[in-house]
């Protein structure tokens, strides 16, 4: 990297330092509790993976620009300069070995939101050209093609056609004045096309109207992952424009963790206004259908189940009880992992980490805690609600020779759906 880009990166760090970041750095007591909460530190024991230590360049930028002592040191030439080499080394620390799972934020005794700080540091890293190639490619495709995985409208149409044939249900593109606009992640459409079939079956059963936008079907927000608010804003705006044009009441985020927090919590701040519609995660919607008696299921799973909480959904998004209520509908043999809900352990591939090929060995090493907790349950099937978690879990399970299928909760529910006419269901719900 040239000095110009280094300067751009450092300037971007300085710009990123807002009141929360400044107060977090001022408050840190170096207790190290964040280290014990981090899956990468936990499995390697290497201090460089201590979450707060991953932010060292950002901390020095704060100290040198925003503290009296730091500015004096800088004037006297006593400060340690941020270098190209240091930022290159930090690419691994803030991208490959951080999934922004926020477990460190949760345990910090002084309330520092370290995941937020990492998110801000990624902004500086991306601006300075220090983001990993995998994430740069994904972000470019997201902006240019509309999908980080290069899924075009042609490919989406082929998948829709496939789902229509498999279910016998028509799936509408760009239908206005419907209740729901369903977002999908490329990961689902490419690896788990059954998800779309499950949605079609469930919504038909519930008697709800829905559509997919041809211009904003993608839920994944690569801007959040790489650390570019500009890209994140473009991707959020695409969804907002489509939802408002189609006059839908609710936008549904799919089984994807970060996509949910991106559109629901970060989105309004990114575009600087409230939405004219609600944003819900698919599990929240299914839970509401269930409460209204619109999700009748039959039969129970034969296997013993456990559930992996996607971090962005549970810890950051608060969707914890919904999946458990839904699981109870199809299983009387469900067991929790030692750490679950808000305290769950990350799969190791969130926050864009799974898109970084060179990070795989570390990711698999960091999977050990999850492996141990899954094995302790003695469950024979692992359920989750995030396509990315599902792939990373599949890799981990395969790597550690665990014989365990991993299934998506929405698909699992669809398999147990009772085929009943809508009117009969409504009558039953009233009784």
């Amino acid at each position, binding site marked *: 990297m040239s000095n110009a880009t280094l300067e751009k990166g450092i300037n971007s760090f300085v710009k990123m330092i807002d009141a929360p970041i400044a107060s977090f750095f001022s408050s840190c007591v170096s207790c190290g509790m964040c280290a014990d909460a981090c899956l990468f530190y936990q499995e390697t024991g290497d201090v460089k993976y201590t979450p707060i230590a991953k932010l060292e360049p950002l901390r020095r930028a704060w100290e040198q620009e925003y503290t009296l002592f730091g500015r004096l040191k800088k004037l006297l030439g006593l400060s340690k300069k941020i270098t190209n080499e240091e930022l290159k080394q930090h690419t691994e620390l803030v991208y490959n070995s951080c999934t922004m799972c926020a477990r460190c934020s949760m345990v910090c005794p002084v309330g520092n939101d370290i995941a937020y700080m990492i998110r801000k540091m990624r902004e500086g890293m991306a601006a300075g050209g220090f983001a990993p190639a995998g994430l740069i490619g994904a972000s470019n495709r997201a902006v240019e093609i509309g999908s980080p995985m290069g899924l075009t409208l042609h490919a989406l149409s082929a998948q829709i056609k*496939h789902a229509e044939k498999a279910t016998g249900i028509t799936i509408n593109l760009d239908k206005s004045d419907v209740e729901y606009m369903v977002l999908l992640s490329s990961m689902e459409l490419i690896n788990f096309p059954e998800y779309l079939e499950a949605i079609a079956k469930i919504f038909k059963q519930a008697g709800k109207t829905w559509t997919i936008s041809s211009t904003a079907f993608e839920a994944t927000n690569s801007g959040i992952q790489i650390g570019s608010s500009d890209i994140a804003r473009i991707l959020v705006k695409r969804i907002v424009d489509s939802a408002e044009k189609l006059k839908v009441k609710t936008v549904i985020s799919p089984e994807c963790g970060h996509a949910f927090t991106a559109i629901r919590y970060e989105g309004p701040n990114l575009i600087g206004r409230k939405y004219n519609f609600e944003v819900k995660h698919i599990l929240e919607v299914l839970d509401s259908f269930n409460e209204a008696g619109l999700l009748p299921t039959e039969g129970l799973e034969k296997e013993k189940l456990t559930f992996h909480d996607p971090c962005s959904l549970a810890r950051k998004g608060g969707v914890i009880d919904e999946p458990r209520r839904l699981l109870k509908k199809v299983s009387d043999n469900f067991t929790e992992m030692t750490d679950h809900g808000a305290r769950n352990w990350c799969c190791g591939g969130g926050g864009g980490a*799974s898109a970084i090929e060179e990070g795989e060995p570390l990711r698999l090493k960091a999977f050990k805690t999850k492996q141990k907790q899954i094995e302790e349950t003695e469950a024979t099937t692992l359920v989750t609600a995030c396509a990315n978690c599902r792939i990373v879990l599949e890799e981990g399970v395969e790597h550690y020779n665990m014989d365990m299928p991993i299934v998506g909760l929405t698909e699992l529910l669809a398999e147990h759906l009772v085929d009943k006419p809508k009117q009969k269901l409504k009558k039953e719900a009233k009784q």
Partner: protein
Amino acid sequence: MKTITNDKQFKATIDELSSLQNRKLATLFLQNVMGLTDKKKYQQLLTLASNKNATEQEYANLQTAIQTMVVETNARCGTDTDWAAQAEHFVAKSALSCVKDANRSNQNSAYDSAMYARMACNFASIADGKSDEQAETQAQYQILIQFLGDK
């Protein structure tokens, strides 16, 4: 001779088959999409399927190898999708249906194999514009009819 003209009939007929018949049929569906992948990868499976004395342990051993193929061909989040490779991924999933423990699976391995084979065709059609999922569906109906006749 039984006629099968839609998926409802297709699934209902498969549901009536035993788990071992399911496995045999699953392998026939897999064989029909071998053109989308390197057939050599599945030679061991095809050999095993033709062996009437094959044991569950032999299938279990093969399951591990095929599961690895499935995982290795997963498209990772954020990667630029290779649609032909993704077609191979679904062929691997179809193959996995053929080797699942006949005592443990819910007797629908043939149906799963068929659906994954269709998905493979769908991805191949995105890649080359030539493959045809509809033609594959019709071919699967014929395979099932033939299978029932040979039973």
